[in-house]
C-alpha cells in the first residue's frame, strides 16, 4: 500500500478531512505526523532558514518526522483558495523551501492550488494528484467528492460552535454560566495545542466559552468584510476582520483575544486594523498574545489571567 504522509501543521487544520478521505478512497494509507511536540519544533528549527516564522519552522519539523516513514509527502502549494484572495507568501514557497533545505526527501506531492483561475482548473489539479494512485478518472472524481463531503461535515461541526473531536482539544467550560470570548488567530496556531500553549484549554478552565472565526459561515464573513473600505486580498486577514466586525456587534461577546506568531507579515497589518477598530467599539477589550520559540508559559498565563480579571470586574 502506498503511504502518504500529511504534516499535522499549517493548512492541515483547515483541510485534513478532505485530504485524508481523498487519499484513502484511492487506496493509499495516510500517515499524519504527531501533534507538534518539542522534538518536532527542534527538528524544524534546525532545518529551515532562520527568517521563517515559527509555524513554518514547525511545518518543517513535521516533514522531518514523516520523511523516513512514507512514500510520498503531501505538501500542497496553496496560492489562492478563494477568488482574488491570497494566502501568505511563505505558503507559496513551501515545496521549494523544503526541497532546498531537507536532503533525501521522499517524493513530494505538491500541486499548486490557485483558485484565482477558473473552477475547471481545480479538477486538473485533483487529477494531477489522483492519477498517481489510479488511472481511472471516475474513481478519482468519486474520491474527491467523498473528500468534499467529509470536509463539509467538518465545517458543519464548527458552525455549531463546536471544536471537532479530531483536534482533541478540551474546550468546554466547566459551568454553563460562562464568559464568551472570541479567539482570533491562524488555525495552525490556535488549534495547535503545543504552539498555542494550550490556550483554548486554559480558557475553558477559566470558564470561558471560546468562539472563533471558523464558527462563522463564509456568508457572514464575506458580508461583514465588505464593510471594510478596501478589498482585503489576504484570505486569512479577510476572515479575521469579517469575524471581528460580526462578533463586535454581538452583545454576549465579552472580549477578544488575538494570538499571533512573532514576525508574521500579514498579522502585523491585521492586528493593527483590529486594534484600531475595536478601540472605537465600547466594551469589547482586546488581548494581544504573541508566540515565538520560547516555552515559558508564565507570560501567556499572566496576560490571560489579567484579561480574565478585567472581564470579570466588568461583568461585576
Amino acid at each position, binding site marked *: 500500500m502506498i503511504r502518504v504522509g500529511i504534516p499535522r501543521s499549517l493548512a492541515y487544520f483547515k483541510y485534513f478531512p478532505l485530504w485524508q478521505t481523498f487519499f484513502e478512497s484511492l487506496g493509499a494509507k495516510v500517515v499524519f505526523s504527531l501533534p507538534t511536540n518539542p*522534538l518536532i519544533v527542534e527538528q524544524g528549527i534546525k532545518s529551515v532558514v532562520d527568517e521563517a516564522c515559527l509555524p513554518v519552522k514547525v511545518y518543517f519539523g513535521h516533514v522531518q518526522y514523516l520523511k523516513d516513514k512514507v512514500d510520498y509527502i503531501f505538501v500542497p502549494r496553496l496560492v489562492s483558495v478563494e477568488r482574488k484572495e491570497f494566502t501568505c507568501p511563505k505558503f507559496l514557497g513551501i515545496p521549494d523551501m523544503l526541497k532546498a533545505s531537507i536532503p533525501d526527501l521522499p517524493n513530494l506531492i505538491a500541486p499548486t492550488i490557485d483558485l484565482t483561475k477558473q473552477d475547471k482548473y481545480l479538477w486538473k489539479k485533483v487529477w494531477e494528484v489522483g492519477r498517481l494512485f489510479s488511472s481511472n478518472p471516475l474513481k478519482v472524481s468519486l474520491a474527491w467528492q467523498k473528500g468534499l463531503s467529509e470536509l463539509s461535515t467538518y465545517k458543519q461541526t464548527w458552525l455549531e460552535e463546536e471544536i471537532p473531536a479530531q483536534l482533541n482539544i478540551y474546550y468546554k467550560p466547566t459551568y454553563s454560566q460562562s464568559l464568551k470570548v472570541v479567539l482570533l488567530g491562524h488555525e495552525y496556531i490556535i488549534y495547535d495545542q503545543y504552539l498555542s500553549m494550550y490556550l483554548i484549554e486554559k480558557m475553558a478552565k477559566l470558564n470561558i466559552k471560546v468562539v472563533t472565526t471558523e464558527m462563522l459561515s463564509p456568508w457572514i464573513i464575506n458580508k461583514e468584510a465588505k464593510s471594510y473600505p478596501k478589498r482585503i486580498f489576504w484570505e486569512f486577514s479577510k476572515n479575521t476582520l469579517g469575524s471581528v466586525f460580526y462578533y463586535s456587534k454581538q452583545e454576549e461577546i465579552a472580549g477578544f483575544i488575538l494570538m499571533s506568531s512573532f514576525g508574521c507579515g500579514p498579522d502585523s497589518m491585521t492586528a493593527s486594523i483590529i486594534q484600531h477598530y475595536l478601540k472605537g467599539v465600547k466594551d469589547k477589550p482586546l488581548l494581544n498574545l504573541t508566540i515565538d520559540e520560547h516555552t515559558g508559559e508564565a507570560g501567556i498565563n499572566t496576560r490571560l489571567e489579567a484579561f480574565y480579571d*478585567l472581564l470579570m470586574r466588568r461583568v461585576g
Partner: protein
Amino acid sequence: MSLYLGIDVGSVSTNLLVIDEEHNVIESIYLRTQGRPLESIKKGLMMLYPRLPKKEKIAGVGTTGSGRQLAAFLVGADVVKNEITAHAVAAAQQVPDVRSVLEIGGQDSKIIILENGVVTDFAMNTVCAAGTGSFLDQQAARMGLSIQEFAQLALQAKNPVRIAGRCSVFAESDMIHKQQLGHSLPDIIAGLCQALVRNYLNNVGKGKNIKPPVLFQGGVAANPGIKVAFEKALNTEVIVPRYFNVMGALGAAILAKEAIVKQERTNFKGFNLIESQFTTSSFDCHGCPNICEVIELYIDGNLTARWGDKCNKWTDALQTKVAN
C-alpha cells in the same frame, strides 16, 4: 490587629510587604532575585520577621509576579494573583482617582488604564524585553556605573542624543557609536531614557488613552531620567508613588486581605519556614512526546510540591501520596 503579607517574586527583584487592616504599610523589603527566587524569598522572610511587631500575626498571604506559583507553594498563599491585577489594585489604593498606570519592571513593561478604580484596558510588552529594567542594568554595568549614578547622570544632560530604542541590541551599538564620536555620558544616558520611553509608548502604549493622573511604578521608576522623559513625552505630570518599587507586593497584600474575608484561616506556613532548607530539582518526563519539565520542591529533604507537567500526572501522584 491582623497583618497581611504580600510577596512579589519578579525576574529582577523579590519584594515582601506587610500591611495592617487599614492598608497602612508596616514594613517593606526590596531584594534582588539574582536568579535564585527560593533563596531570596527565604532571605526576605528572615529580614522581615524581626522587624514585625511581635504581638501581631500574619492573617493572610498573597503572592504575585512571575514566580508567584513558586512562592505560593513555598509559603502557603491564600491568593495567587497575576501582577497586572496586583499592580492595578495597589495603584487604585494609593491614588484612588488614578487613570493610567505605567509600569516598567525587570523584564516586563505594562500599561494599565483604569476607570473608577476598575481596570478597563491593559497591555504588556510582547516577547521582546527591550527597554525594560534589565537592559538599563546591563548598560549601567557596561559603563561601570551603579544604577543610581546612571539615573542621576541622565538629569545632567544638556543635549540628549538620539538612540534607537526599538531593540536593545541596536540601542547598545548606537550608544557605543555615539560614545566613540565623543558625546558626553549624560547626553547618551538621557538619550537612552528617551529612547526607552519612546519605545514603551509606541509599543506597549500604542492605541491606549493615557489620561492623568498618571502613575509611574515598578523598579525603573527609581530612575528620575525616565520619569522626566515620560513627562516630556506625555506633556503631563507623572506621579511616582511612595512604594513604587513594591507595588506588586502591596497589591498582593491587599488581595490577601480581601481573600481572607471569604475564607476562614490563612494557609500561611509561618515564619518557621526560615529555618527550613529549600531545594528544587527538575527532570524531563518522557511519558509522552510533550517532554514536560517537571519541577520538584523539597522542604528539609521532603518532597512538598511538584509542578510543570501538562497532564498533572506527577502533580496528582504527589497529592495522593500526601493525602494518604
